[in-house]
Protein backbone atom coordinates (compact mmCIF):
# COMPACT_ATOMS: atom_id res chain seq x y z
CA UNK A 1 0.00 0.00 0.00
CA UNK A 2 2.75 2.30 0.98
CA UNK A 3 4.58 1.31 -2.11
CA UNK A 4 1.58 2.09 -4.19
CA UNK A 5 1.38 5.57 -2.79
CA UNK A 6 5.02 6.00 -3.42
CA UNK A 7 4.44 5.06 -6.98
CA UNK A 8 1.50 7.26 -7.47
CA UNK A 9 2.94 10.36 -5.87
CA UNK A 10 6.49 9.96 -7.22
CA UNK A 11 7.74 10.28 -3.70
CA UNK A 12 11.36 9.64 -4.51
CA UNK A 13 11.22 12.16 -7.30
CA UNK A 14 9.75 14.72 -5.01
CA UNK A 15 12.46 14.05 -2.47
CA UNK A 16 15.04 14.66 -5.12
CA UNK A 17 13.33 17.83 -6.25
CA UNK A 18 13.25 19.02 -2.69
CA UNK A 19 16.98 18.61 -2.48
CA UNK A 20 17.41 20.36 -5.76
CA UNK A 21 15.21 23.26 -4.82
CA UNK A 22 16.88 23.59 -1.47
CA UNK A 23 19.93 24.72 -3.38
CA UNK A 24 18.14 27.91 -4.25
CA UNK A 25 19.08 29.03 -0.80
CA UNK A 26 22.69 27.99 -0.92
CA UNK A 27 25.35 30.54 -1.71
CA UNK A 28 26.62 30.40 -5.29
CA UNK A 29 29.80 28.47 -5.75
CA UNK A 30 30.29 29.35 -9.39
CA UNK A 31 32.53 32.16 -10.51
CA UNK A 32 31.58 34.37 -13.42
CA UNK A 33 34.89 33.72 -15.09
CA UNK A 34 35.99 36.64 -17.19
CA UNK A 35 34.82 39.01 -14.47
CA UNK A 36 35.81 36.91 -11.51
CA UNK A 37 38.88 34.79 -11.22
CA UNK A 38 39.87 32.10 -8.82
CA UNK A 39 42.86 32.57 -6.66
CA UNK A 40 45.50 30.13 -7.71
CA UNK A 41 47.96 28.46 -5.38
CA UNK A 42 51.66 29.20 -5.73
CA UNK A 43 52.21 25.75 -7.12
CA UNK A 44 50.16 26.52 -10.22
CA UNK A 45 51.87 25.42 -13.40
CA UNK A 46 51.16 28.15 -15.91
CA UNK A 47 53.21 29.83 -18.59
CA UNK A 48 56.96 29.43 -18.36
CA UNK A 49 59.28 32.34 -17.89
CA UNK A 50 62.97 33.07 -17.61
CA UNK A 51 64.45 34.80 -14.61
CA UNK A 52 67.31 37.14 -13.90
CA UNK A 53 69.41 37.41 -10.80
CA UNK A 54 68.03 39.94 -8.40
CA UNK A 55 71.14 41.90 -7.67
CA UNK A 56 72.57 42.69 -11.07
CA UNK A 57 69.84 41.86 -13.53
CA UNK A 58 72.03 39.37 -15.37
CA UNK A 59 70.38 36.49 -17.07
CA UNK A 60 70.45 33.35 -15.02
CA UNK A 61 70.26 31.05 -18.01
CA UNK A 62 73.62 29.74 -19.16
CA UNK A 63 72.25 27.75 -22.08
CA UNK A 64 73.14 24.36 -20.66
CA UNK A 65 70.38 22.66 -22.67
CA UNK A 66 69.33 20.53 -19.72
CA UNK A 67 65.73 21.73 -19.97
CA UNK A 68 65.78 20.72 -23.62
CA UNK A 69 66.94 17.26 -22.64
CA UNK A 70 64.43 16.95 -19.80
CA UNK A 71 61.41 18.07 -21.80
CA UNK A 72 59.14 15.10 -22.49
CA UNK A 73 57.44 16.71 -25.45
CA UNK A 74 60.50 18.27 -27.06
CA UNK A 75 59.13 21.78 -27.14
CA UNK A 76 62.22 23.64 -25.94
CA UNK A 77 65.06 24.60 -28.17
CA UNK A 78 68.13 26.30 -26.78
CA UNK A 79 71.01 27.61 -28.81
CA UNK A 80 74.03 28.59 -26.82
CA UNK A 81 77.18 30.48 -27.61
CA UNK A 82 79.97 32.29 -25.90
CA UNK A 83 80.19 35.96 -25.18
CA UNK A 84 82.56 38.22 -23.39
CA UNK A 85 81.25 39.52 -20.12
CA UNK A 86 83.44 41.60 -17.84
CA UNK A 87 86.57 39.99 -19.11
CA UNK A 88 85.38 36.40 -18.99
CA UNK A 89 84.25 34.26 -21.84
CA UNK A 90 80.87 33.06 -20.64
CA UNK A 91 78.24 30.78 -21.99
CA UNK A 92 74.79 32.14 -22.61
CA UNK A 93 71.71 31.24 -24.58
CA UNK A 94 71.46 33.11 -27.83
CA UNK A 95 68.05 31.65 -28.55
CA UNK A 96 65.59 30.16 -26.17
CA UNK A 97 62.33 29.10 -27.73
CA UNK A 98 59.45 27.28 -26.16
CA UNK A 99 56.76 26.03 -28.45
CA UNK A 100 53.78 26.51 -26.17
CA UNK A 101 51.57 24.59 -28.59
CA UNK A 102 53.59 21.50 -27.73
CA UNK A 103 54.28 22.23 -24.07
CA UNK A 104 52.57 19.88 -21.60
CA UNK A 105 53.20 22.05 -18.53
CA UNK A 106 54.80 19.27 -16.56
CA UNK A 107 57.44 21.50 -14.97
CA UNK A 108 60.28 19.08 -15.63
CA UNK A 109 62.36 21.83 -17.19
CA UNK A 110 62.15 23.83 -14.00
CA UNK A 111 63.21 20.83 -11.99
CA UNK A 112 66.08 20.18 -14.32
CA UNK A 113 67.44 23.73 -14.50
CA UNK A 114 70.70 23.81 -12.54
CA UNK A 115 70.56 27.56 -12.04
CA UNK A 116 66.83 28.03 -11.47
CA UNK A 117 66.56 30.23 -14.49
CA UNK A 118 63.22 28.79 -15.49
CA UNK A 119 60.04 29.04 -13.51
CA UNK A 120 56.33 28.81 -14.06
CA UNK A 121 53.86 31.57 -13.47
CA UNK A 122 50.14 31.82 -12.91
CA UNK A 123 49.59 33.18 -16.34
CA UNK A 124 47.13 31.08 -18.30
CA UNK A 125 45.35 33.53 -20.56
CA UNK A 126 47.33 33.74 -23.74
CA UNK A 127 45.06 32.25 -26.31
CA UNK A 128 45.43 33.85 -29.67
CA UNK A 129 44.33 33.61 -33.24
CA UNK A 130 47.90 33.55 -34.40
CA UNK A 131 49.58 30.24 -33.78
CA UNK A 132 52.99 31.69 -34.43
CA UNK A 133 52.74 33.94 -31.44
CA UNK A 134 52.58 30.81 -29.31
CA UNK A 135 56.24 30.20 -29.81
CA UNK A 136 57.72 32.07 -26.90
CA UNK A 137 61.16 33.34 -27.66
CA UNK A 138 63.79 34.53 -25.26
CA UNK A 139 62.58 38.11 -25.17
CA UNK A 140 59.02 37.06 -24.48
CA UNK A 141 60.07 34.66 -21.74
CA UNK A 142 62.12 37.33 -20.01
CA UNK A 143 59.25 39.72 -20.37
CA UNK A 144 56.95 37.28 -18.58
CA UNK A 145 59.67 36.69 -16.03
CA UNK A 146 60.17 40.37 -15.31
CA UNK A 147 56.46 40.97 -15.19
CA UNK A 148 55.56 38.04 -12.97
CA UNK A 149 58.70 37.88 -10.95
CA UNK A 150 56.92 37.31 -7.65
CA UNK A 151 54.79 34.46 -8.95
CA UNK A 152 57.81 32.78 -10.46
CA UNK A 153 59.74 33.02 -7.22
CA UNK A 154 56.70 31.70 -5.39
CA UNK A 155 56.54 28.75 -7.74
CA UNK A 156 60.17 27.86 -7.13
CA UNK A 157 59.70 28.02 -3.38
CA UNK A 158 56.46 26.04 -3.49
CA UNK A 159 58.04 23.27 -5.55
CA UNK A 160 61.10 22.95 -3.31
CA UNK A 161 63.35 24.37 -5.98
CA UNK A 162 64.56 27.17 -3.79
CA UNK A 163 64.59 28.04 -0.12
CA UNK A 164 62.22 30.63 1.28
CA UNK A 165 65.01 33.15 1.41
CA UNK A 166 68.15 32.80 -0.55
CA UNK A 167 70.02 31.88 2.59
CA UNK A 168 72.36 29.65 0.71
CA UNK A 169 73.43 32.29 -1.73
CA UNK A 170 76.94 32.37 -0.34
CA UNK A 171 77.73 28.85 -1.40
CA UNK A 172 75.45 28.74 -4.24
CA UNK A 173 76.87 28.05 -7.62
CA UNK A 174 76.52 30.83 -10.06
CA UNK A 175 77.79 31.25 -13.48
CA UNK A 176 80.45 32.15 -14.34
CA UNK A 177 82.10 32.10 -10.96
CA UNK A 178 81.35 31.48 -7.36
CA UNK A 179 80.71 34.55 -5.41
CA UNK A 180 83.79 35.30 -3.47
CA UNK A 181 83.18 34.06 0.00
CA UNK A 182 84.52 34.18 3.48
CA UNK A 183 85.42 30.80 4.93
CA UNK A 184 82.22 29.41 6.29
CA UNK A 185 81.70 26.68 8.87
CA UNK A 186 80.97 23.27 7.47
CA UNK A 187 77.19 23.12 7.16
CA UNK A 188 75.36 20.12 8.50
CA UNK A 189 74.22 17.66 5.91
CA UNK A 190 70.62 16.67 6.08
CA UNK A 191 69.96 13.33 4.53
Amino acid sequence: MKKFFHNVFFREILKGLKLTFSHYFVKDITLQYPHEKTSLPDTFRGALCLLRYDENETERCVGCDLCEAACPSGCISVVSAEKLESGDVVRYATDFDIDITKCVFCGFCVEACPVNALAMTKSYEYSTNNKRSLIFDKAKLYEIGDHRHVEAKGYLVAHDQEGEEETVSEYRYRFPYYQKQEPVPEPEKST
Partner: protein
Amino acid sequence: MAVEVTPEEKPKEENSLPLLRKEELLLNLGPQHPSTHGVLKVIVTLEGEKVVKSEPVLGFLHRGVEKLAESVTYNQFIPHTDRLDYVCAMYNNFAYVRAVEKLLDITVPWRTEYLRTIVAEVQRIIGHLFWLGTQALDIGAMTVFFFTFRDREDLLDLFTELCGARLTTSWYRVGGVERDFTQKFVDDLSKFLVTFDEKIDEYDTLLINNRIWLARTKNIAVISGEDAVAFGLSGPTLRGSGVDYDLRKVSPYGAYDHVEWTVPLGTKGDTYDRYWIRMEEMKESAKIIKQCLAQLPSGPFKADIPQVVAPPKEQVFTDMDSMIYQFKLYTQGFKAPKGDIYCGTEAHKGELGFYIVSQGEGKPYRLKIRAPSFVHMGAFDFMAKGYMIADIITIFGTYDIVMGECDR
Protein backbone atom coordinates in the same frame (compact mmCIF):
# COMPACT_ATOMS: atom_id res chain seq x y z
CA MET B 1 24.06 9.76 -37.27
CA ALA B 2 24.16 7.95 -40.50
CA VAL B 3 21.62 5.31 -41.15
CA GLU B 4 22.32 2.54 -43.52
CA VAL B 5 19.78 0.06 -44.61
CA THR B 6 20.82 -3.33 -45.76
CA PRO B 7 17.87 -5.15 -47.14
CA GLU B 8 18.21 -8.78 -46.53
CA GLU B 9 16.31 -10.87 -48.95
CA LYS B 10 14.53 -13.44 -46.90
CA PRO B 11 11.82 -15.06 -48.88
CA LYS B 12 9.60 -16.25 -46.05
CA GLU B 13 6.97 -18.48 -47.35
CA GLU B 14 6.56 -20.73 -44.39
CA ASN B 15 2.99 -19.81 -43.77
CA SER B 16 0.32 -17.96 -45.52
CA LEU B 17 0.61 -14.81 -43.49
CA PRO B 18 1.17 -11.64 -45.46
CA LEU B 19 4.88 -11.37 -46.30
CA LEU B 20 6.63 -9.58 -43.45
CA ARG B 21 9.73 -7.92 -44.65
CA LYS B 22 12.40 -8.07 -42.01
CA GLU B 23 15.33 -5.72 -42.14
CA GLU B 24 18.48 -5.38 -40.14
CA LEU B 25 19.41 -1.82 -39.51
CA LEU B 26 23.03 -0.76 -39.34
CA LEU B 27 23.46 2.25 -37.12
CA ASN B 28 26.66 4.23 -36.84
CA LEU B 29 26.72 5.59 -33.33
CA GLY B 30 29.43 8.12 -32.80
CA PRO B 31 32.23 9.05 -33.00
CA GLN B 32 30.85 12.52 -32.38
CA HIS B 33 27.94 11.46 -30.23
CA PRO B 34 27.99 13.27 -26.89
CA SER B 35 27.19 10.14 -24.92
CA THR B 36 30.21 8.22 -26.14
CA HIS B 37 32.54 9.95 -23.71
CA GLY B 38 34.98 10.98 -26.31
CA VAL B 39 35.38 9.58 -29.73
CA LEU B 40 34.01 6.07 -29.72
CA LYS B 41 32.12 4.80 -32.68
CA VAL B 42 29.87 1.79 -32.47
CA ILE B 43 28.33 0.11 -35.44
CA VAL B 44 25.14 -1.31 -34.07
CA THR B 45 23.13 -3.87 -35.96
CA LEU B 46 19.53 -3.52 -34.98
CA GLU B 47 16.54 -5.65 -35.43
CA GLY B 48 13.80 -3.23 -34.70
CA GLU B 49 14.94 -1.69 -31.48
CA LYS B 50 16.83 -4.74 -30.39
CA VAL B 51 20.60 -4.87 -30.62
CA VAL B 52 21.76 -7.86 -32.58
CA LYS B 53 25.39 -6.99 -32.82
CA SER B 54 27.45 -4.06 -31.78
CA GLU B 55 30.92 -3.51 -32.96
CA PRO B 56 32.99 -0.83 -31.30
CA VAL B 57 35.33 0.97 -33.67
CA LEU B 58 38.29 2.25 -31.71
CA GLY B 59 41.31 4.27 -32.52
CA PHE B 60 39.99 7.76 -33.08
CA LEU B 61 42.19 8.91 -30.23
CA HIS B 62 45.15 6.66 -30.93
CA ARG B 63 48.34 8.59 -30.27
CA GLY B 64 50.95 5.85 -30.25
CA VAL B 65 51.86 6.32 -26.62
CA GLU B 66 53.50 2.90 -26.44
CA LYS B 67 55.77 3.76 -29.35
CA LEU B 68 56.47 7.14 -27.81
CA ALA B 69 57.56 5.45 -24.59
CA GLU B 70 60.37 3.75 -26.45
CA SER B 71 61.99 7.07 -27.21
CA VAL B 72 61.77 8.87 -23.87
CA THR B 73 63.44 8.11 -20.58
CA TYR B 74 61.50 6.47 -17.79
CA ASN B 75 60.99 9.75 -15.99
CA GLN B 76 59.99 11.62 -19.08
CA PHE B 77 57.16 9.21 -19.68
CA ILE B 78 55.33 10.26 -16.51
CA PRO B 79 53.63 13.30 -18.09
CA HIS B 80 52.58 11.10 -20.96
CA THR B 81 50.76 8.76 -18.60
CA ASP B 82 48.69 11.76 -17.49
CA ARG B 83 47.06 11.65 -20.86
CA LEU B 84 45.91 8.05 -20.71
CA ASP B 85 42.88 8.29 -18.53
CA TYR B 86 42.85 12.02 -18.58
CA VAL B 87 40.25 12.44 -15.89
CA CYS B 88 42.25 10.44 -13.38
CA ALA B 89 45.87 11.17 -14.07
CA MET B 90 47.07 10.43 -10.56
CA TYR B 91 46.22 6.77 -10.80
CA ASN B 92 47.97 6.45 -14.14
CA ASN B 93 51.07 8.02 -12.67
CA PHE B 94 50.81 5.72 -9.69
CA ALA B 95 50.47 2.58 -11.78
CA TYR B 96 53.38 3.62 -13.95
CA VAL B 97 55.82 4.53 -11.21
CA ARG B 98 54.90 1.36 -9.36
CA ALA B 99 55.80 -0.66 -12.44
CA VAL B 100 59.11 1.14 -12.86
CA GLU B 101 59.90 0.71 -9.18
CA LYS B 102 59.20 -2.98 -9.50
CA LEU B 103 61.56 -3.11 -12.46
CA LEU B 104 64.25 -1.27 -10.53
CA ASP B 105 63.47 -3.24 -7.38
CA ILE B 106 63.37 -0.21 -5.13
CA THR B 107 61.11 0.66 -2.25
CA VAL B 108 59.94 4.07 -1.20
CA PRO B 109 59.82 5.52 2.32
CA TRP B 110 56.75 4.87 4.43
CA ARG B 111 55.55 8.39 4.34
CA THR B 112 55.58 8.23 0.55
CA GLU B 113 53.44 5.12 0.57
CA TYR B 114 50.85 6.93 2.66
CA LEU B 115 50.97 10.07 0.59
CA ARG B 116 50.51 8.00 -2.51
CA THR B 117 47.64 6.04 -1.08
CA ILE B 118 45.79 9.15 0.06
CA VAL B 119 46.12 10.88 -3.27
CA ALA B 120 45.20 7.73 -5.15
CA GLU B 121 42.03 7.38 -3.14
CA VAL B 122 41.18 11.03 -3.64
CA GLN B 123 41.63 10.34 -7.32
CA ARG B 124 39.34 7.33 -7.04
CA ILE B 125 36.65 9.51 -5.50
CA ILE B 126 37.12 12.04 -8.27
CA GLY B 127 36.86 9.30 -10.84
CA HIS B 128 33.71 7.86 -9.40
CA LEU B 129 32.13 11.29 -8.98
CA PHE B 130 32.91 12.02 -12.59
CA TRP B 131 31.44 8.71 -13.61
CA LEU B 132 28.36 9.17 -11.53
CA GLY B 133 27.66 12.62 -12.90
CA THR B 134 28.07 11.69 -16.50
CA GLN B 135 26.26 8.37 -16.21
CA ALA B 136 23.30 10.07 -14.60
CA LEU B 137 23.46 12.78 -17.24
CA ASP B 138 23.41 10.18 -19.99
CA ILE B 139 20.37 8.58 -18.45
CA GLY B 140 18.69 11.91 -18.04
CA ALA B 141 19.26 13.03 -14.49
CA MET B 142 21.00 16.30 -14.86
CA THR B 143 21.13 17.52 -11.31
CA VAL B 144 23.46 14.77 -10.17
CA PHE B 145 25.98 16.01 -12.63
CA PHE B 146 26.04 19.44 -11.03
CA PHE B 147 26.31 18.00 -7.56
CA THR B 148 29.13 15.61 -8.32
CA PHE B 149 31.06 18.14 -10.32
CA ARG B 150 30.76 20.60 -7.49
CA ASP B 151 32.49 18.14 -5.18
CA ARG B 152 34.94 17.03 -7.81
CA GLU B 153 35.92 20.64 -8.24
CA ASP B 154 36.81 20.89 -4.57
CA LEU B 155 39.10 17.91 -4.91
CA LEU B 156 40.67 19.19 -8.09
CA ASP B 157 41.47 22.41 -6.28
CA LEU B 158 43.28 20.26 -3.77
CA PHE B 159 45.32 18.78 -6.58
CA THR B 160 46.14 22.24 -7.84
CA GLU B 161 47.31 23.08 -4.38
CA LEU B 162 49.35 19.90 -4.30
CA CYS B 163 51.04 19.87 -7.66
CA GLY B 164 49.91 22.85 -9.66
CA ALA B 165 47.57 21.20 -12.13
CA ARG B 166 44.05 19.87 -12.02
CA LEU B 167 44.19 17.03 -14.49
CA THR B 168 47.70 16.61 -15.86
CA THR B 169 49.22 16.15 -12.49
CA SER B 170 52.54 14.29 -12.91
CA TRP B 171 52.86 14.27 -9.17
CA TYR B 172 54.11 10.76 -8.68
CA ARG B 173 57.79 10.21 -9.37
CA VAL B 174 59.86 7.09 -9.56
CA GLY B 175 61.12 6.65 -6.02
CA GLY B 176 58.72 9.09 -4.42
CA VAL B 177 56.45 11.96 -5.18
CA GLU B 178 57.15 15.41 -6.50
CA ARG B 179 56.10 17.38 -3.48
CA ASP B 180 55.10 16.76 0.09
CA PHE B 181 51.65 17.57 1.49
CA THR B 182 51.26 21.02 2.88
CA GLN B 183 49.28 21.63 6.02
CA LYS B 184 46.73 23.45 3.93
CA PHE B 185 46.24 20.38 1.78
CA VAL B 186 45.73 18.12 4.79
CA ASP B 187 43.30 20.58 6.40
CA ASP B 188 41.28 21.07 3.26
CA LEU B 189 41.13 17.37 2.64
CA SER B 190 39.98 16.66 6.18
CA LYS B 191 37.36 19.36 5.87
CA PHE B 192 36.11 17.84 2.67
CA LEU B 193 35.86 14.37 4.18
CA VAL B 194 33.75 15.61 7.07
CA THR B 195 30.90 16.53 4.76
CA PHE B 196 31.54 13.94 2.11
CA ASP B 197 29.30 11.24 3.59
CA GLU B 198 26.39 13.68 3.58
CA LYS B 199 27.05 14.42 -0.01
CA ILE B 200 26.94 10.78 -0.94
CA ASP B 201 23.59 10.67 0.77
CA GLU B 202 22.49 13.55 -1.40
CA TYR B 203 23.34 11.61 -4.54
CA ASP B 204 21.51 8.63 -3.16
CA THR B 205 18.49 10.78 -2.51
CA LEU B 206 18.50 11.74 -6.13
CA LEU B 207 19.08 8.31 -7.57
CA ILE B 208 18.80 5.26 -5.39
CA ASN B 209 15.04 4.99 -5.50
CA ASN B 210 14.51 7.02 -8.64
CA ARG B 211 12.35 4.85 -10.83
CA ILE B 212 13.81 6.08 -14.08
CA TRP B 213 17.26 5.31 -12.78
CA LEU B 214 16.19 1.89 -11.64
CA ALA B 215 14.46 1.11 -14.90
CA ARG B 216 17.49 2.11 -16.87
CA THR B 217 20.02 0.26 -14.75
CA LYS B 218 18.42 -2.78 -13.16
CA ASN B 219 18.94 -5.89 -15.25
CA ILE B 220 20.78 -4.02 -17.93
CA ALA B 221 24.04 -5.37 -19.31
CA VAL B 222 24.12 -8.38 -17.07
CA ILE B 223 27.27 -10.44 -17.13
CA SER B 224 28.00 -13.50 -15.07
CA GLY B 225 31.11 -13.84 -12.95
CA GLU B 226 32.64 -16.53 -15.17
CA ASP B 227 32.10 -14.51 -18.33
CA ALA B 228 33.42 -11.37 -16.73
CA VAL B 229 36.58 -13.20 -15.72
CA ALA B 230 36.99 -14.76 -19.14
CA PHE B 231 36.71 -11.32 -20.72
CA GLY B 232 39.35 -10.01 -18.38
CA LEU B 233 37.05 -7.37 -16.94
CA SER B 234 38.26 -5.70 -13.79
CA GLY B 235 37.39 -3.11 -11.23
CA PRO B 236 33.76 -2.39 -10.37
CA THR B 237 32.72 -3.97 -13.65
CA LEU B 238 34.09 -7.31 -12.49
CA ARG B 239 33.13 -6.96 -8.84
CA GLY B 240 29.61 -6.13 -9.85
CA SER B 241 29.36 -9.75 -10.94
CA GLY B 242 30.46 -10.88 -7.51
CA VAL B 243 34.07 -11.78 -8.27
CA ASP B 244 36.29 -10.79 -5.41
CA TYR B 245 39.25 -9.45 -7.33
CA ASP B 246 40.68 -6.22 -6.09
CA LEU B 247 44.43 -5.76 -6.52
CA ARG B 248 44.55 -3.63 -3.42
CA LYS B 249 43.63 -6.77 -1.49
CA VAL B 250 45.15 -9.42 -3.76
CA SER B 251 48.61 -7.94 -3.79
CA PRO B 252 48.55 -5.02 -1.43
CA TYR B 253 50.63 -2.00 -2.23
CA GLY B 254 50.85 1.46 -0.81
CA ALA B 255 49.33 1.56 2.63
CA TYR B 256 46.25 -0.48 1.79
CA ASP B 257 47.12 -3.36 4.08
CA HIS B 258 47.60 -0.98 7.00
CA VAL B 259 44.07 0.33 6.99
CA GLU B 260 40.65 -1.20 7.50
CA TRP B 261 38.40 -1.36 4.51
CA THR B 262 36.25 -3.79 2.62
CA VAL B 263 35.66 -4.65 -0.99
CA PRO B 264 32.01 -4.21 -1.94
CA LEU B 265 30.74 -6.97 -4.18
CA GLY B 266 27.68 -7.13 -6.38
CA THR B 267 25.42 -10.09 -6.90
CA LYS B 268 23.59 -9.79 -10.17
CA GLY B 269 26.24 -8.27 -12.37
CA ASP B 270 23.98 -5.61 -13.81
CA THR B 271 24.48 -1.90 -14.25
CA TYR B 272 22.76 -1.10 -10.99
CA ASP B 273 25.16 -3.31 -9.03
CA ARG B 274 28.08 -1.57 -10.60
CA TYR B 275 26.57 1.77 -9.65
CA TRP B 276 26.06 0.58 -6.12
CA ILE B 277 29.65 -0.67 -5.90
CA ARG B 278 31.02 2.65 -7.02
CA MET B 279 28.97 4.45 -4.40
CA GLU B 280 30.24 2.05 -1.76
CA GLU B 281 33.79 2.42 -2.98
CA MET B 282 33.62 6.15 -2.52
CA LYS B 283 32.65 5.59 1.08
CA GLU B 284 35.47 3.08 1.49
CA SER B 285 37.90 5.52 -0.09
CA ALA B 286 36.87 8.20 2.34
CA LYS B 287 37.45 5.70 5.13
CA ILE B 288 40.89 4.83 3.81
CA ILE B 289 41.88 8.48 3.47
CA LYS B 290 40.76 9.26 6.98
CA GLN B 291 42.76 6.40 8.42
CA CYS B 292 45.80 7.24 6.35
CA LEU B 293 45.71 10.87 7.41
CA ALA B 294 45.52 9.77 11.00
CA GLN B 295 48.43 7.37 10.63
CA LEU B 296 50.53 9.55 8.33
CA PRO B 297 54.12 8.92 9.38
CA SER B 298 56.83 11.53 9.17
CA GLY B 299 59.95 11.18 7.14
CA PRO B 300 61.26 11.88 3.69
CA PHE B 301 58.93 11.79 0.73
CA LYS B 302 61.52 10.63 -1.74
CA ALA B 303 63.69 7.58 -1.66
CA ASP B 304 67.36 8.20 -1.02
CA ILE B 305 68.63 6.48 -4.14
CA PRO B 306 70.78 9.03 -5.91
CA GLN B 307 71.08 6.99 -9.07
CA VAL B 308 67.32 7.07 -9.58
CA VAL B 309 65.92 10.03 -7.70
CA ALA B 310 67.21 13.45 -8.63
CA PRO B 311 68.92 15.21 -5.73
CA PRO B 312 67.29 18.11 -3.90
CA LYS B 313 67.79 21.31 -5.81
CA GLU B 314 69.66 23.10 -3.03
CA GLN B 315 72.36 20.45 -3.16
CA VAL B 316 72.63 20.74 -6.92
CA PHE B 317 73.76 24.32 -6.50
CA THR B 318 76.51 23.45 -4.09
CA ASP B 319 77.64 19.83 -4.48
CA MET B 320 79.59 18.38 -7.33
CA ASP B 321 78.07 14.92 -6.94
CA SER B 322 74.51 16.22 -6.88
CA MET B 323 75.22 18.31 -9.92
CA ILE B 324 76.46 15.24 -11.74
CA TYR B 325 73.44 13.17 -10.75
CA GLN B 326 71.15 15.96 -11.84
CA PHE B 327 72.75 16.03 -15.26
CA LYS B 328 72.99 12.29 -15.68
CA LEU B 329 69.38 11.74 -14.70
CA TYR B 330 67.91 14.43 -16.86
CA THR B 331 69.92 13.67 -19.96
CA GLN B 332 70.25 9.91 -19.93
CA GLY B 333 67.81 8.77 -17.30
CA PHE B 334 68.54 5.94 -14.93
CA LYS B 335 69.54 2.63 -16.38
CA ALA B 336 67.01 -0.04 -15.55
CA PRO B 337 68.33 -3.59 -15.36
CA LYS B 338 67.62 -6.03 -18.13
CA GLY B 339 64.37 -7.85 -17.67
CA ASP B 340 60.63 -7.56 -18.01
CA ILE B 341 57.93 -7.01 -15.45
CA TYR B 342 54.20 -6.61 -15.34
CA CYS B 343 52.69 -4.59 -12.58
CA GLY B 344 48.98 -4.08 -12.27
CA THR B 345 47.41 -1.41 -10.11
CA GLU B 346 43.77 -1.12 -9.13
CA ALA B 347 42.63 2.11 -10.71
CA HIS B 348 39.03 3.14 -10.24
CA LYS B 349 38.17 1.80 -13.69
CA GLY B 350 39.87 -1.51 -13.16
CA GLU B 351 43.27 -3.03 -13.44
CA LEU B 352 45.69 -0.61 -15.03
CA GLY B 353 48.88 -2.48 -15.73
CA PHE B 354 52.22 -1.70 -17.27
CA TYR B 355 54.32 -4.36 -18.91
CA ILE B 356 57.84 -3.04 -19.35
CA VAL B 357 60.67 -4.75 -21.17
CA SER B 358 64.04 -3.25 -20.34
CA GLN B 359 67.24 -3.93 -22.24
CA GLY B 360 69.40 -2.21 -19.68
CA GLU B 361 69.03 1.28 -21.09
CA GLY B 362 67.63 4.53 -19.87
CA LYS B 363 64.57 4.09 -22.03
CA PRO B 364 62.04 1.25 -22.05
CA TYR B 365 62.58 -1.22 -24.85
CA ARG B 366 58.89 -1.96 -24.95
CA LEU B 367 56.14 -0.60 -22.82
CA LYS B 368 52.67 -2.08 -22.98
CA ILE B 369 49.76 -0.48 -21.20
CA ARG B 370 47.03 -2.84 -20.10
CA ALA B 371 44.21 -0.34 -20.13
CA PRO B 372 41.00 -1.44 -18.43
CA SER B 373 38.86 0.58 -20.83
CA PHE B 374 40.31 -1.28 -23.77
CA VAL B 375 39.76 -4.70 -22.23
CA HIS B 376 36.23 -3.71 -21.25
CA MET B 377 35.42 -2.74 -24.79
CA GLY B 378 36.13 -6.34 -25.75
CA ALA B 379 33.06 -7.38 -23.81
CA PHE B 380 30.83 -4.67 -25.19
CA ASP B 381 29.25 -6.73 -27.91
CA PHE B 382 28.61 -9.58 -25.51
CA MET B 383 27.00 -7.36 -22.93
CA ALA B 384 24.94 -5.24 -25.31
CA LYS B 385 23.43 -8.10 -27.24
CA GLY B 386 19.73 -8.40 -26.83
CA TYR B 387 19.15 -5.03 -25.17
CA MET B 388 17.40 -2.05 -26.64
CA ILE B 389 19.13 0.61 -28.62
CA ALA B 390 18.54 3.11 -25.85
CA ASP B 391 20.48 0.94 -23.44
CA ILE B 392 23.62 1.23 -25.49
CA ILE B 393 24.27 4.59 -23.88
CA THR B 394 23.92 3.13 -20.42
CA ILE B 395 26.25 0.30 -21.31
CA PHE B 396 28.97 2.67 -22.47
CA GLY B 397 28.65 4.40 -19.20
CA THR B 398 28.71 1.35 -17.04
CA TYR B 399 32.31 0.58 -17.94
CA ASP B 400 33.37 4.12 -17.19
CA ILE B 401 35.40 4.20 -20.37
CA VAL B 402 37.76 6.98 -21.27
CA MET B 403 38.94 6.87 -24.82
CA GLY B 404 42.32 8.37 -24.06
CA GLU B 405 43.14 5.22 -22.19
CA CYS B 406 41.31 2.89 -24.54
CA ASP B 407 43.02 4.08 -27.71
CA ARG B 408 46.29 5.14 -26.10
